[in-house]
């Protein structure tokens, strides 16, 4: 069952040694779904998203002391989740040797994923997003799927709002061109 707790409640529990584990449980139950979906949008395949999410939570638990409250809790978590997901994709790309092979493998995996029942259009969108440069992809996912404001995205990515707007514009253009070419 998903239970929501406020960031203040969670941080207060995490700060005390005695209630650290309880605080972690509150953190997981509040953010597990949002973070999973965020990771899933980056990596596409459920199995990969599952691995990334688990690794990401282990990292969060091991480095919980390094959260100093300078940024929001969700900002901190999204940053870790995004980094973890991008690291997986980088490894896959390196393993594949070139972008074409990587995209081919990814496409096969997506089509075989029993937890993706999108139409051709949905798969094409995922494919185009997957081909975007990392920063453009991140901005697009935060804006399109998470409906985040530029201010929030700026906090997570540490990039200026002007820069983010430019990245989103380029991402949107590329996606439009790719979809228009297809339909």
């Amino acid at each position, binding site marked *: *069952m*998903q239970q929501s707790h406020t960031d203040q409640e969670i941080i207060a529990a995490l700060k005390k040694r005695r209630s650290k*584990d309880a605080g*972690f*449980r509150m953190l*997981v*139950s509040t953010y*597990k*779904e949002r973070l*999973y*979906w965020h990771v*899933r*949008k980056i990596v596409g395949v*459920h199995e990969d998203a*599952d691995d990334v*999410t*688990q690794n990401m*939570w*282990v990292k969060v*638990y*091991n480095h919980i002391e390094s959260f100093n409250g300078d940024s929001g809790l969700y900002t901190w978590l999204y940053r870790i989740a995004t980094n973890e997901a991008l690291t997986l994709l980088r490894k896959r790309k390196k393993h594949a040797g070139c972008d074409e092979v990587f995209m081919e493998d990814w496409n096969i995996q997506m089509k075989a994923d029993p*937890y*993706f*029942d*999108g*139409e051709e*259009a*949905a798969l094409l*969108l995922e494919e185009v997003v997957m081909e975007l440069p990392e920063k453009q992809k991140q901005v697009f996912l935060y804006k*399109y*799927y998470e409906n985040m404001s530029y201010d929030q995205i700026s906090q997570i990515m540490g990039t200026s709002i002007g820069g983010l707007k430019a990245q989103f514009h380029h991402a949107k253009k590329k*996606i*439009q061109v790719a*979809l*228009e070419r297809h*339909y």
Partner: protein
Amino acid sequence: MKNKQQIDKNKFKVPTNYFDDLEQTIYNKTIDAPRQRTSIIQFVKPWMGVAASVVMLALATFLWFNKPESNQMTASADGTEQLAYAELDDMLYDELFAEADDDHETLNDLADFLLELEDME
């Protein structure tokens, strides 16, 4: 042309009860896992030192009390000969000290007798 808004955002699915299972897996790998491991280590660690000390002490004691002396019979290739010597030693001992043992017996009897006398007083 289909624009991006027309494309369903929710084409991604997860297995049934996935998030409950995920939560449990996360706890198994974090809160629960290290505690089990550290509790075993914490229990075993101090006893490892004690066990090592006991083993060392036992070994030292064993070596100390089993130190072969120059006049003591040691293992030899000719065991039969050693056994014969040991038997001979026993026989000589009996011969030489049988009398002395008798004397001891007499002395013991005397001591008992004196004690009895003291008690009587």
